[in-house]
């Protein structure tokens, strides 16, 4: 029932988020935007992956790579998260849970697909219990391919996502 009402398409989500985007002359919202760019919090959700991407994503938060220096923090609750980092192909069992987690996240929210499986389903594409990549269920903002992607690649993906958020603001300013 929930799945039927949810229509995953980039355009519909865009329209929804655009309500929250900042007009250049609105001061309080600018503050929000600034906070969002400086310190996005990440929720990690494994949708049936092999753990390879999970340990690399976690490694990105540990001292060698340390994305926390950018103010990026790994969060346990979807209600506190700005970015949903999904690893693994979406299995049928987990699909509804993934949508529910996405719905619990506050707007505006972004999805980062980490690893080849999350991008397209990769070797599990044709399995009977797998839907495919994350983009079959949720609108994805940044894809980080690789099996598994190195922590550097994941950091690059997060930075690209931040640039994308900044870009949206610049786009709104220009209008």
């Amino acid at each position, binding site marked *: 029932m929930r799945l039927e009402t949810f229509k995953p398409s980039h355009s519909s989500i865009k329209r929804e988020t655009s309500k929250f985007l900042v007009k250049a002359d609105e001061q309080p919202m600018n503050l929000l935007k600034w906070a969002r760019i400086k310190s996005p919090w990440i929720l990690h959700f494994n949708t049936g992956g092999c753990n390879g991407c999970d*340990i690399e994503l976690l490694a990105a938060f540990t001292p060698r790579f340390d994305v926390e220096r950018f103010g990026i923090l790994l969060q346990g609750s979807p209600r506190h998260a700005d970015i949903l980092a999904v690893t693994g192909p979406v299995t049928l069992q987990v699909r509804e849970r993934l949508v529910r987690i996405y719905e619990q996240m506050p707007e505006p929210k972004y999805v980062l697909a980490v690893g080849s499986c999350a991008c397209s389903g*990769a070797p599990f594409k044709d399995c009977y219990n797998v839907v495919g990549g994350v983009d079959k269920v949720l609108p994805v903002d940044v894809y980080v391919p690789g099996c598994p992607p190195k922590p550097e690649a994941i950091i690059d993906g997060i930075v690209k996502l931040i640039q994308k958020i900044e870009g949206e603001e610049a786009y709104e300013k220009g209008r």
Partner: protein
Amino acid sequence: MSYGSTIKVPFGPQHPALKEPEHFLFKIDGDIIVNVKPRIGYNHRGIEKAFERRTYIQNIYLAERICGICSDAHTTCYVQAIEDLLGVEAPPRARYIRVIVAELERIHSHSLWLGIAAHEIGFDTLFMHLWRDREAVMDILELISGNRVHYAMNTIGGVRRDIVSETIPKVIGSLDFLEKRTKYYMKVLRSEPTVLKRTVDIGVLKPEDAVELCAVGPTLRASGVKNDVRRDDPYAAYDEIPFNIVTDDGCDVFSRILVRCGEILESINMIRYALDHMPSGMLRVRVPMVVKPGEAVSRVEAPRGELIHYVKSNGSTRPERYKVRSPTLANIPALCKMLIGQHVADIPIILAGIDPCFACMDRLVFVDVKTNKKKALDFESFRKIVRKRHELL
């Protein structure tokens, strides 16, 4: 103290303490767990049927993706089963390289687990320190195989890459560093009250229960039972390399920590010995694409315990049936036993205590509830049943 009534506490599939989607339903009385019901299957991808649709060479790639943390154990197990069917044996140098990569993987997996365990008891400083030092072993693996997580070292009939003599001094240097750090961490873990208070006498699994519930790997060894596939049924070059089986009589989470620390030190010594005594020679033997009909079972001591692969061939280029029994699945009944009678606050560390890897674990079997008969199905019927259930047809 009993409150006379129980409440149900769901745990997962998305939970900060679980890195993978699995669900546990706890029945609690006050703060004490009286019953636990695991609901596994969120990670089920249908990998066994995927094996049957690919050729033997393609399946090496797939076997590696059963689990990202023990990927080398899965490929070793897979290629051993196929080599058994083909009647070929890997050359001596290849068997030594298999041991070295497997032990490096064990070090990486155990130090990863120690970090996670420190995180679960709220000791994030230790988690960060452990993961910083773990990068040393990841660097060795990257140096040897070219990748940090999926090494792709094994192939049917041997290994794909050599360990060249120029890399050996680097590997030895990193191993010395790891040994020094692991000894330091053992000292810290033994004396740190934060760790002791959260782990000693928590999640107790008595030796007789461990044997009865078929626990495997470090979970079993932490209950004082000497059981290790590397010793009991040697594969690769384990019959030529001396090592001790690390056990502990504590039976609690703390002894699981000590066993894993001890295994890291053992693995370091084994790699040093293997690098010193590695014979020269070729890396692989050529094998045919077609495998003659037959069945084979192969066992490997993965970082989490005994891993079993079963293959049935019908004489074509693809297996007819493939079965994986991963160590985490064997440890689930023991886990439920450990959890009963414990406090709610200790759930994360007890769950993490068996080093769960749900990605390896989720298998599926159709059972007719009325007649209690198991059904064997092919890919298409599976697909139809599953898609119908999820209303996709």
